[in-house]
């Protein structure tokens, strides 16, 4: 995806610039863009190191595990089709906590593991389950509590108060997440039946290694870490 977007930006930009007679500005722009990237990374390096340092403390002191325990009622509400105690629950909460804290690079692997376990509860190969739809809608509506990258960008470009975005972003992300959950609940309740634990393997899965290699290169590579990216 990014390959096409990037190529389109470069090719369209240069073609358009040639038509408009702005070739010198384009050379200047390309060089300035590369310089900006390095400056930005210098700012980002400090903020990211601070953040991942704090998260390491939170992880090793057991704070993240404690938070995962606190999420259980929420996960039961969002994913009633997943039986209590099923391993998918642990991966879903790991994914959510990483998302809360803006750790996109940790959220995606946990999310993919959760998805794999949701697939074992799927009795219609190739068709998404209610739990999968809910999981992705919640992920896409973003759960991030502190938009740490945005704070870094704002500070790099001279904001008077870079952290001022935290609460408005929190309100906005709450609104989008609630909209997503309501929609998924509405759509899901129509067709869902309370599925038991049905360990059904997909019949059409002949090439396990293909699926694995997709997973490896899938997440995290094209997205700037911190989101889902994330999320990326």
């Amino acid at each position: 995806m990014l390959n096409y977007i990037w190529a389109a930006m470069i090719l369209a930009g240069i073609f358009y610039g040639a038509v408009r007679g702005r070739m010198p500005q384009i050379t200047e722009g390309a060089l300035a863009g590369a310089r900006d990237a390095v400056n930005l990374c210098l700012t980002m390096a400090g903020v990211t190191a601070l953040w991942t340092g704090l998260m390491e403390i939170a992880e090793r002191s057991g704070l993240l595990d404690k938070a995962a325990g606190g999420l259980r009622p929420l996960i039961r509400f969002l994913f009633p089709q997943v039986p209590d105690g099923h391993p998918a629950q642990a991966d879903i909460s790991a994914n959510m906590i990483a998302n809360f804290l803006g750790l996109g690079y940790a959220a995606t692997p946990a999310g993919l593991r959760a998805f794999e376990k949701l697939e074992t509860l799927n009795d219609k190969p190739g068709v998404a389950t209610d739990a999968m739809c809910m999981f992705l809608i919640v992920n896409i509506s973003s759960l991030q509590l502190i938009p740490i990258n945005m704070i870094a960008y704002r500070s790099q470009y001279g904001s008077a108060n870079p952290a001022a975005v935290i609460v408005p972003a929190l309100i906005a992300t709450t609104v989008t997440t609630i909209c997503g959950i309501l929609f998924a609940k509405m759509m899901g309740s129509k067709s869902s039946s309370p599925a038991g634990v049905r360990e059904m393997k997909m019949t059409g899965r002949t090439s396990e290694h293909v699926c694995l290699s997709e997973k490896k290169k899938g997440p995290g590579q094209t997205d700037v870490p911190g989101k889902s990216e994330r999320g990326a």
Partner: protein
Amino acid sequence: MDFLVFLSDFIMPLMIFYIVGYGVLASRPVYDDFVRGAQKGLKITVEILPTLCGLLVGVSILRASGFLDDLSALLAPAAAAVGLPAPIVPLSFIKMFSSSAATGLVLDIFKEYGPDSRIGWITSILMSCTETVFYTMSVYFMSVHIKKTRYTLAGALIASLAGVAVSVLLAAG
């Protein structure tokens, strides 16, 4: 907005206090842990430098060619009709496909208008409240070979639209 800014000022310090305090109570060597984590963070930053470099070069070329300005001018009447500043339109579109490409546009907007301008505020909030729709969906569904995604796309688009609306409203307040 003033009150929200005031609250925002408290969140980071309180969170740092809580995390370090919790670590001390759990009798962890907090400073060692911090340093180990910070090292990981630096590695991540070094790894994204090439990505960011490529994207900023791409967006800068697009900006220097005059394409972005002309596109904004073209979109301005339609965007104004729904209360959106023109530069937000390409951003919310690109954001559905790639969050890195959107980041390039965000930085361009901050450079042009400043992060504290109205456009800068909308951008800041918008980018913090939704994720990349198509990218996320394809990575996850591909991983388990799901073809019929049912209502996932509709739900994701509704959440994204809500995000645009609420960003504009919050930035106005």
